């Protein structure tokens, strides 16, 4: 995909929208940051590379204007899910899709270079990332530092778009193994799993970054994690309350999580918060043949029902 083509599309789209959301260079060479383009001269700020990790669709529900938005394949599912839930007016959104060959996990890169200051980041054509730090250049394969979601990505090309900046790409990842990690984890003993989550959630500092980053957390400032009316969780900083918070987050996303991974990316403690939601998604697939954010005409399974549930059997004691 060429950046010029993207810029050309943005320039065209600018004519019919109030703002286009894209990426620009962030505070250091390793970080891209969202940018809001309202004037033609700002188009040149736009960048596109594997550092463009943010899910820009997250902004859509809070914007009243007519918006153009750049989405990767994974991000596009957010828009579809919004449509299923009636959360956006599709006619007010122009979707600029980018066929994506994978992004990087900034966290993984930083770990590779031992958190040294970043001087330069380059991407070679053969899928390598070259990071320059004061102690020299480190070369790493893109696949080595990709976020987990890229490893099983089924939708490199956006599932829906008005403009596509580049040629569609088909996924080469086995659709059967999307939830392989979840299945593997579930095979562990109850004690092991319990210990795992207790250890992970105990690190939670209840900063709510995961929630704030989540495009599907529509409650925004009304989140019940911080409310007394209703009073689901107390302000106590103990494991029970932390787990309760994460269960609220997970269950509120049941059958809605589009697995963009923003929650995990945002978590300062590196807690695998997306895992619970992916587990639920794997069940949604089995129970209702449902995958969030794929078909605009679908109904999220928790907000509907069948009189005869084909895949739910009555439980016996």
């Amino acid at each position: 995909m060429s950046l010029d083509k993207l810029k050309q599309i943005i320039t065209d789209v600018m004519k019919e929208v109030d703002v286009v959301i894209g990426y620009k260079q962030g505070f250091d060479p390793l970080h891209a940051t969202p940018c809001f383009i309202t004037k033609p001269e700002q188009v040149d700020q736009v960048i596109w590379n594997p550092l463009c990790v943010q899910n820009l669709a997250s902004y859509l529900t809070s914007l009243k204007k007519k918006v153009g938005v750049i989405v990767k394949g994974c991000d596009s599912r957010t828009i579809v899910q919004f449509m299923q839930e009636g959360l956006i007016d599709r006619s007010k959104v122009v979707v600029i899709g980018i066929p994506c060959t994978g992004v990087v996990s900034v966290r993984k890169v930083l770990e590779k270079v031992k958190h040294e200051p970043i001087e330069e980041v380059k991407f070679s054509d053969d899928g390598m990332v070259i990071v320059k730090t004061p102690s020299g250049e480190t070369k790493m394969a893109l696949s080595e530092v990709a976020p987990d979601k890229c490893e099983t990505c089924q939708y490199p090309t956006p599932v829906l778009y008005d403009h596509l900046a580049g040629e569609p790409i088909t996924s080469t990842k086995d659709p059967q193994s999307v939830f392989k990690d979840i299945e593997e984890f579930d095979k562990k003993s109850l004690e092991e799993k319990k210990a795992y989550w207790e250890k992970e959630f105990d690190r939670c500092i209840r900063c709510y970054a995961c929630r704030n980053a989540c495009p599907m957390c529509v409650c925004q400032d009304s989140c019940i994690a911080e409310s007394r009316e209703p009073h689901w969780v107390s302000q106590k900083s103990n494991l029970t309350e932390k787990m309760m918070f994460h269960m609220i987050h997970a269950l509120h996303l049941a059958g809605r999580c589009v697995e963009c991974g923003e929650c995990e990316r945002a978590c300062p403690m590196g807690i695998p918060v997306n895992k619970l939601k992916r587990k639920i998604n794997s069940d949604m697939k089995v129970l209702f043949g449902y995958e969030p954010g794929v078909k605009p005409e679908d109904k999220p399974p928790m907000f509907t029902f069948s009189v005869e549930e084909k895949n739910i059997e009555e439980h016996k004691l």
Partner: protein
Amino acid sequence: MSEVGPKELRIVGFLCNWCSYGGADTAGVSRFKQPTDLRIIRVPCSGRVDPLFVVKALLNGADGVLVSGCHPRDCHYSDGNFYARRRLEMLKRLLPFLGIDDKRFHYTWISASEGQRWQQTVTDFTKQIHKLGPLHSGKEAQQ
């Protein structure tokens, strides 16, 4: 009595007002004896039971949670239990992922006339929870 009876575990039941709560009443009227561990919370409909109530109870000290509503198609509010079925099934599958045995959570359908079925359910579920023992380590069984 010299011996202390079997120790109770903490079991919470959410019962819909129209069917299962009535079923429990019917069991009472018929004097169908049941184990004493269960504490009942009356809700209008099983569809009112947010799975988070179950989680809340299990995280905060319950050893087992039972939810019971009207039989599918027989909901006093026509569709409430259909929603409940989906949500509670989702939860039942999630619990073991968190390391909580899904046998600690049971959801079922009992009508107001099924006193015997209620007795059987309470008896079997209590037995099942006792087989699993307390959920929270270090917590002593009560009574």
